[in-house]
Structures are given as C-alpha cells and as structure tokens.
C-alpha cells in the first residue's frame, strides 16, 4: 500500500481567549498586548489530518509562513497531529503579503516537502484576517482540486480517491450538504464544525499510540523543524511580500455611527414599574398578528 502524505497549513494568530486578548477602549483589538497562539481554525485542520494518521497511518507535515515565533504554532500543531515534518517560511521580505503573495510562499513550501502531498489541509479562515482566501489560492497555484467547508472525508488509499462531505451555506437560502468524490491530490479547507470520530477498537488504540508519540515529538519539535528564507524557498522575489501583493490596505477607520434607526425609550432596570412596562410591551408585540 502506498503511503498517504498530508500537509497542513497553519497560522499563528492573536489569541482571542479571555486573559490573552486585549481590546482598546474603543472596542478594537489591541494587537501589542494580545498574545499569539495556534489559530483555532488551524487547530481544527490539524485534528482533521490526525484523523488520517489514525485511520490510514498517514505521514504529516505542518507548514506555516510567519515570523520566527511561528515555530510555537508549529509545535502546538505537532502535538495535535503527530507531524513528522515542520516547515517555517520566514523572511522579512514576506512581511506585508496579501493573500495572493502568501499563497505563493505556501505553494513553494509545499512543493519542497520530503514527499509530495496527496492532501493539503487548511483551516476555514484566520481569526484575524478572516478572508478565507489563502487556502483556495494556494490550492490553485498547486494545481490541486479545492474543496471548502469540509465536514467529513474518507480516503480509498488503493485507488487514490477521496470522498468528501461539505457544507454549502447560501445566505437567504437553505444550507446543503454535498457529497463529492475526486482523485488525489486535493486541497481541503476544513469547516469549523468538523469532528473526528474513532469507532473501532483498533482506531482507538492507534489514536492513543499516536497521541503519545505526538507529545514526545512536540517536546523535541526542533528536531523536525526546517526554516526557509526566500532564497532557500527559491521563489521569485517579485511574487511574494509587498512586491507580489496586488492589494494594499489604503486606510483603516472607525466605522461611523449610523443614524439612529429607532428612538429608544430608556427604562430604569431597578424600577419595578419600568420592568412591568417593558414586559407589557413585549407581550403586546408577541400577541400581534403575524403577517410575514
């Protein structure tokens, strides 16, 4: 049986959990004070790859573009998915990249992995940028078939085909679960709702074994880590970082307060009469005829 090779693209992101996150008085994120961590969607992608390790004994590589600190996120992801190979693409020239220029670095990096990736995983989107574009853009550059919002997958290792379930949400319409089949290689962006289940005894035993191994590997993650700068990656310098970014951030402003749509009657929560009034109004509104 030919081995299954996986790559997971992850990102170091601001940690939005209480105690780590810091907001400015105006409600915006205080980036300087906020800690960094493995992005939550990246973590789901790593879990989804680990599923294939447990089920098919796949080999996993985790890759990221970012500052040297990015190795922290790689270590966290390794602990989740028991990766054999970690890649950090780090160079000052990569700074300021938009999604297209980021995708170029990731493409080059994934093509430098020891074994050609059969499936590349990414998270749904980053929690800070929130574009969700880097995954599909990297996929297109790699020439891999792209699937987004993936909630489940199975691989037929013999025939090198994958069967995928994905959610298609169309606002103002219903949601659809689509089941599709494609030959490898593919690139899948994992939906936040993805959950791996291990049903058989052998799967659960494998799960425990690989988890133990992951812990040991993550404790010695440097041994698995390769860092690449722009030369080592061999990318065209005009296609990465600022020079390779079609888009720029022109300005950032506070969203102006829209004009008041309603005129609120202000009630005092400690006045029983006001509470009574609020409830009466609510009851009145609820008993109105429904004409939709």
């Amino acid at each position, binding site marked *: 049986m030919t081995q299954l090779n996986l790559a997971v693209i992850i990102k170091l992101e601001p940690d939005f959990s209480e105690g780590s996150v810091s907001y400015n008085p105006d409600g915006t994120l205080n980036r300087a004070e906020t800690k960094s961590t493995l992005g939550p969607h990246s973590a789901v992608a790593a879990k989804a790859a680990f599923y294939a390790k447990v089920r098919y004994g796949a080999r996993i590589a985790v890759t990221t573009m970012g500052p040297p600190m990015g190795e922290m996120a790689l270590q966290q992801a390794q602990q989740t998915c028991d990766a054999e190979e970690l890649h950090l693409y780090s160079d000052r020239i990569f700074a300021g990249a938009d999604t297209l220029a980021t995708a170029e670095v990731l493409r080059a990096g994934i093509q430098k992995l020891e074994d050609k990736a059969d499936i590349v995983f990414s998270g749904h989107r980053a929690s800070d940028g929130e*574009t969700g574009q880097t995954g599909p853009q990297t996929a297109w550059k790699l020439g891999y078939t792209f699937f987004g919002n993936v909630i489940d997958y199975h691989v037929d290792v013999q025939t090198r085909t994958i069967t995928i379930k994905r959610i298609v949400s*169309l606002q103002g319409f219903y949601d659809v679960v689509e089941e599709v089949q494609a030959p490898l290689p593919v690139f899948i962006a994992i939906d*936040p709702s993805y959950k791996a289940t291990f049903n058989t005894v052998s799967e659960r035993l494998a799960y425990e074994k690989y988890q133990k191994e992951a812990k040991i590997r993550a404790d010695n993650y440097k041994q698995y880590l390769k860092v690449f700068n722009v030369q080592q990656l061999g990318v065209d310098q005009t296609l990465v970082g600022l020079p390779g970014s079609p888009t720029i951030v022109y300005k950032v402003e*506070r969203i102006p307060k829209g004009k008041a749509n309603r005129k*609120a009657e202000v009630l005092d929560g400690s006045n029983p009469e006001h509470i009574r009034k609020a409830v009466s109004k609510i009851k009145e509104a609820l008993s109105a005829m*429904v004409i939709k």
Partner: protein
Amino acid sequence: MTEGKYRHVHVVMELEDGKLVPVSLEMLGEARRLFDDFNKKYQSNEKVIAVLLGHQVKDLANQLIEYGADAVICADHPELKEMRNTIYTKVICQIASDKDLATKIEPTYGAEFKRPRYMFFAADSIGRHLSSTVLTELESGLASDINKLEINDVTITHQSKTAGKPVTYEKTIEMYRPDFSGFLWTTILCLDNKNPAIERDYHPQSCSIIPGVFEAITPDESRTGIVLDFIPTIDQKDLAVKILSRKVIKSEVDFDSCKAIVSFGRGIKDSPDENIKLIEHFAKVLKAEIGVSLPISKKPFPVNQSLSNNYMIPDRVIGTSGRKVNPMVYVAVGISGAIQHIAGMKEAELVVAINPDENSQMKDESDLFIKGRMEDIIPLLIEELKKQEKTVEA
C-alpha cells in the same frame, strides 16, 4: 494605460438549484448604481455584465437585465449544471479574457480588451472560494467581505507600488470591509505596480460582497440589454470531481418559526456561565430562540463545555456573518450594536436592549432600552413575565 484594455464590471451570478440566490441581484444593483455614477463622472460607457453559468439557465437572462445588467454572458452547458470549483474557475476566466465577447458588447474597444476592470463575487461558501481561485488564475487582487464600494481617482505614495513617489490611480475601486470587531473599516485597493523595478498590472480589481448588504434595484421591464452565449472550452481533466449527492439541511437553530429571539454578546463576560443560564431561562419563559453576536462565536471566554457547544457557535450568529432575522420581539442582552449585528436584526418589530451603558450604539437601534446589569434585570423580567402570564390565564 490604453483606454480599452480594462473595461466593465463582471458580476458573477450564483444559482442554487437553477434559481438565483438573492445576493446575485444585490450585487447587480450595486454595480448598476456604481456604473451610472462612473459613466457620468468619466463620460464613459462601460457596462455592467452579468456572468451566468449553469445548464438550461438562459431564461434567467432577461431577469438580470431588468435588475440592472447591460449585458449577460451565458455559459450554458450540461457540465456546468452543478457548481464545481475547477471547471467554474476555468470558464469564468475564459469569459474574462475573451476579446470576441468584449467586441460584441462594445465594438470600439474589443480588439484592445484584456480583462474586466472590476469583478464582483458573493462572499458566501461558493463565491468566497470561486473568487479566490479565479483571481489566482488571473493573477490579480481580491478583497473579501465587502460592505461598501466607491470608485475614485486616488493618489498613492507607496514604498513598493510607486517606489515612494506620488502616483494617481484613476478609476480605483475602494473596497471597504468591516473587521472582526465590527468597529473598524479597512479599505482595500488593488493597484498596478507602477514601481519600475517590479512593474506589473493587477486587473481586474475584485471583491466578494457580503450577502444582504446592498439592495437590488427595482426591476424595470423596459430596460434593454444584450444576451450573449458563450461556448466554454471544457477539458476532461477539469471534470474529475463527481457530485454523489446533495441534501438540503435545516439548521437546528430555528430563528424563523419563533416569535421572539434573545441574543447575547460580550456583555455576559463578568460571569459567563451564570449569565448564559439566566438567558437560557429567560428565553424559555419567552418561548424564544437564542442568538449571539459574532465575537461570542469565537468563544472568547472559558465557559462550561455544554453551554459553549450549544450557544457559542457560528450557527447562532445574527448579523452579516450569520443570519438575518425578523422576529416580533428581539431582546439584545449585553450587545454593543456593531453594524454587522444590526444588519441582521434591524427588521425586528420590537427591539429591547438590556445594557448598563446608555451610550451604547445599541440604544439607537432599540425601542426599549432597559438600563442596568443583566444579572439584576433578567430575573425581574422573568418574574414579571410569569406574573402577567398568570393574569391572562386567570
């Protein structure tokens, strides 16, 4: 830059089961408004072009003209019946680079035509990915989740784009996207590199547009436009994906059949567990469904696992990144009132806010603003609701 190289806006239509998804018409409406201004301002005659892919969908073309398109390019093919990213990307790119189509739309500039000036996609789970792959193939820039657009001449001094010298970029589309906090607007521009060292054109300037933000125009049957058939070149290797099944699912969170919705935001943070339980109780008494603001779905505080899994989830988000609701009663608990949230609930009949801060933006969006802490107010509301319930029964 010659005048004819980059022209028009291509608006990529989205269909589900052969029917137009609402955002398709919303995008056309915004493109129409922008181009009416554009053509006046620049004394030009550039077109709003709807790009329609599918099978047996040509009947929709007239509707698209009524909704603002000057031209509809229709790629009707059995292999395009279902949306598959690879083949859709290829066909959209073929259309975007086709000189014959451009000549039929505008004979004067057809020979020079290279790419559309702008491209619009929907920011949903189809358009988001499709825009990404299309713009990678066309090697140009893309901004996501846009809720405001303006076209202007802008003068830029940029280290990389202009080698630090001021350059005026004509007809630049300013693409505004709200950030995750809902308080900041970032304007993205897609600009050619004018720096001699790295000179490169980046067209089309493209974005994905948040559904529900823009309004479709009132359809006008007297509008005229041209409908062009496009016969796509289809490579068998781009058809490797097989769709095995498609099942419509209904979310377990049912905002539509409940008369009331109680939503909560970051204001629960002092004691999240207790407050969510309190809101749960309140919603039960009110027979309401529970919604949340976007930041809550990112699980910003540690909360009891089952409460977190039940409530702090994307499925419950109300707003532009979630669902649009129109209940009889909407109670906003500890919600600051970011515009994305407002966009999701502004159609509610009665809006009640519970908030200690009278300066909160939520006040301008409520009919009743109950000032105070939710911990104090909700128990009183529950008690009073039960009391009034009994009175009615008696």
